[in-house]
């Protein structure tokens, strides 16, 4: 059924990671992305990997779910690491078709890149698993506020994102219902060639569009009735507050970043 498609991946919980300020979590994710590229040898990368695994364990989200999100990008990981096998210096290990060489340097590159990608995915999965979509948009709105100087409609963008996220499950349910209704009238969506299948979508898409517009219209009306007039002078019911734990998380990350920089400078680089 359509409904089974997992959307957003929020996994409710009460772990320390869940309770961190979403702004801090987003900021730390960016910091992590930057530092995973600063980490240029196995020593510094080791710190990054240790960090992500520590957070995984603290997040209270079943590890199975992390594996699932890794599975989704398995192809990308395999593709890049195989490609990397053939680039790099060092002694030749295997020679393929006469001109392709797998070298020691290439193997190290492949392993290194794989670890980088996997840690990146795991870290961003932590963000989406432990932060609800509303928190995310809320935090994004707050973080993007400086862009207002450039006349970017930050509040409007955030509101649009919130509404879109809110209506995805509703629309999925509606799609389910319309599909059932058309199937009951003998609509055949499982067989036939490509053109036939595209045609079979019409009886579903048209009612879906019609009801989306109706919903959008109703929602706009309801918002107007409650005097919604955009972001100007609007206050929040749930104001984001940074707590001591957020400061602690920032400080801890700062310390690790310094360690990563130190290792990256002190030890020779691994990539060739």
């Amino acid at each position, binding site marked *: 059924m359509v409904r089974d498609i997992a959307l957003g991946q929020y996994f409710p919980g009460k772990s320390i990671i869940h309770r961190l300020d979403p702004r801090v979590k987003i900021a730390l994710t960016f910091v992590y992305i930057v530092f995973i590229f600063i980490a240029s040898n196995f020593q510094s990368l080791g710190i990054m990997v240790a960090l992500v695994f520590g957070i995984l364990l603290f997040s209270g989200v079943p590890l199975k779910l992390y594996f699932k999100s890794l599975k989704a990008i398995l192809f990308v990981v395999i593709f890049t690491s195989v490609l990397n096998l053939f680039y790099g210096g060092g002694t030749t290990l295997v020679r393929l078709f006469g001109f392709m060489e797998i070298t020691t340097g290439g193997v190290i590159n492949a392993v290194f890149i794989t670890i980088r990608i996997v840690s990146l995915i795991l870290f961003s999965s932590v963000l989406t698993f432990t932060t609800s979509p509303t928190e995310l948009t809320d935090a994004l709105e707050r973080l993007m506020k400086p862009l207002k100087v450039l006349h970017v409609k930050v509040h409007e963008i955030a509101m649009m994102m919130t509404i879109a996220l809110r209506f995805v499950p509703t629309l999925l349910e509606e799609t389910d219902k319309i599909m059932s209704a058309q199937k*009951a009238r003998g609509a*055949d969506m499982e067989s036939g060639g490509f053109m036939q299948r595209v045609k079979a979508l019409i009886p579903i898409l048209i009612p879906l569009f019609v009801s989306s517009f109706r919903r959008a219209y109703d929602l706009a009306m309801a918002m107007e009735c409650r005097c919604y007039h955009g972001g100007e002078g609007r206050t929040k019911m749930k104001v984001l507050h940074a707590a001591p734990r957020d400061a602690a998380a920032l400080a801890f990350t700062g310390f690790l970043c310094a360690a990563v920089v130190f290792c990256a400078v002190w030890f020779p680089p691994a990539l060739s």
Partner: protein
Amino acid sequence: MPVIETKDLTYTYGEGTPFCKTAVDHVNLSIEKGELIGLIGHTGSGKSTLIQQLNGLLRPTSGKVLLNGRDIWAQPKKIRAVRFQVGMVFQYPEYQLFEETVLKDIAFGPGNMGLSAAEVERRAREAAELVGLSEQLLERSPFELSGGEKRRAAIAGVIAMDPDVLILDEPTAGLDPRGRDVLLSQIMSYHKVRGNTVILVSHSMEDIARIADRVLVMNSGRVEMFDTAEKVFSRDGELEKIGLRVPEITKIMAMLKSRGWPVATALTLEQAVRQLIPLLKKGAHHG
């Protein structure tokens, strides 16, 4: 032979997850050809889940649905044929309309059956007449109709497939009192003209009492009662316990009876009036 039978029919949503919910629980039913069945039950009692299994939209978790004695899932590839035989009108069916004209939309179902174009149009026009849609409406866009007209067009779209069994999930929800009455009489006359089996889900005890031959009462996924309307609505205590009630007029007659009036149970206003008028006249003479 019964037209529809179920054997230990069970349906569980989200099987194998922590959120699993058994919505239909070992239901055994037998519905004869030509019956008009009223299906009632508290919200969430599994009515919609039950009926969606009868035309193969949901596949039972366990148990069987027999249509004319044959298991509908014996050949899963042929399930579409079952859907033509068991027509299903969903709740708020007007949201399924999509064609350019009302006539084309009504013809969508029969069109999928592989009939000739002439036959499809004949059926569509006949169905439109049965639900009381006038000729000039048929050439209009379905999105220009009023709510009640849309509802009728959607119902015609299912009737046009000429199913042996017609299932309607709360067809009168959201209609004004007049619209409800008209729609109900149309369903009754459809039932009389075609002689087909009809299953009607409704939250209105008055509607059910008025038209149903037999009443099927569901409670938390199980069949609580399945009997004639008189018998079901005479068990008002039990009905109230599972969040239902008897029609207002049935209750009034029961109260009169308990106060010593010589009246029998009545399911509709007309039945009650027929009993009460003579009594009141007599009372006036004596008084």
